[in-house]
């Protein structure tokens, strides 16, 4: 059914200007049908406004937190699976390449492996030498460090003494 009342005043009564409100009131005084429609609308509006805000079952936040934990765990598992998959694929690809190489020229592959082992050995040896040099120079380094720390401590002590006995006396007017 089409409402005649709501056509000229499409929105809330709160939105009406003074002139529109006056027109509405005049129309209402003249028309019982409009009064009936307005009364019906007011009943609907009261029902809508009077209907409660419905909340969820108790424990909604706890359920949300559990759901979050489950999703995070699933995501972590997905990441682990993805990483494992990539590693396996990489390992498979490497094995495939090595296998093909071995099939093509087994002797050359053997030599290449030995060379690789020798290079690793050389790297380890260089590292060991570096540590030895560092170890030999350690007493000198320790002496320099001790000297620096001592000087720093003396500086702090001097600054503290100045603050307490030098600047403080000047500020208090007892220096003279």
């Amino acid at each position, binding site marked *: 059914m089409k*409402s005649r009342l709501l056509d000229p005043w499409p929105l809330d009564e709160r939105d009406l200007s003074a002139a529109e409100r006056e027109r509405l009131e005049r129309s209402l005084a003249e028309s019982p049908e409009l009064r009936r429609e307005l009364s*019906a609308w007011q009943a609907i509006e009261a029902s809508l*406004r009077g209907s409660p805000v419905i909340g*969820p079952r108790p424990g909604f936040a706890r359920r949300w937190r559990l759901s979050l934990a489950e999703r995070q765990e699933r995501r972590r598992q997905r990441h682990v699976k993805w990483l494992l998959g990539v590693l396996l694929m990489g390992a498979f690809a490497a094995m495939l390449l090595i296998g093909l190489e071995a099939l093509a020229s087994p002797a050359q592959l053997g030599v290449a492996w030995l060379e690789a082992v020798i290079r690793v050995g050389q790297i380890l040896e260089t590292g060991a030498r570096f540590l030895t040099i560092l170890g030999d120079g350690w007493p000198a380094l320790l002496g320099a460090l001790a000297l620096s720390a001592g000087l720093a401590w003396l500086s702090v002590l001097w600054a503290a003494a100045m603050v307490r006995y030098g600047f403080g006396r000047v500020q208090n007017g007892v220096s003279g």
Partner: protein
Amino acid sequence: MAGDDEKALINAAVNGDDDAFTKIVERYQKPVYNLCYRLLGNHGDAEDASQEAFMKAYRGLGKYDLQRPFISWLLAIAYNLCIDQLRRRRVTWVGLEALFDRSDPLSRTPEVALEARNEAEGVQKILSTLSVKDRAVVVLRYWYDYSYDEIAETLSLTNGAVKSRLHRARRELMGTWNAEQLALGESQNEVSPA
């Protein structure tokens, strides 16, 4: 604009504090759930949609603009999820069976409970005659007392579109109400002679 406490919670949540976001969930669960319930019409779907809305908000918190009211942002997420859910279901009818387990039934006398249920059924029934978008406008207007601008911002509509939807919704609600009153009058007339 978000309050200081709310901002602090949001910032903490952005920095990975899940407890802070749980407090946000506790604070806004009721308005979000109510919107979902009013749009979807049953508690099961409303629970799923509101849980998902908070999940989506949690994931998208980094994109939230602190100048915008947080509740409007949340309700916009919930509204879009409900629209998606209804689109998937392709059902516009709103079930009424869930209205029977409304809050705190033990604290009411049978008469009060029956009256409240009838009232609630009536409200939900006339709401269900509206399209979901018009229903959302009505819910935000009459339950949350939102201004036209706030409704427009929440539902990504223009101010004019909000007014037009509200106007149409009111006309449809009036039509349904009048038809129901007519049917009620006829049924009473049939009963009276007997």
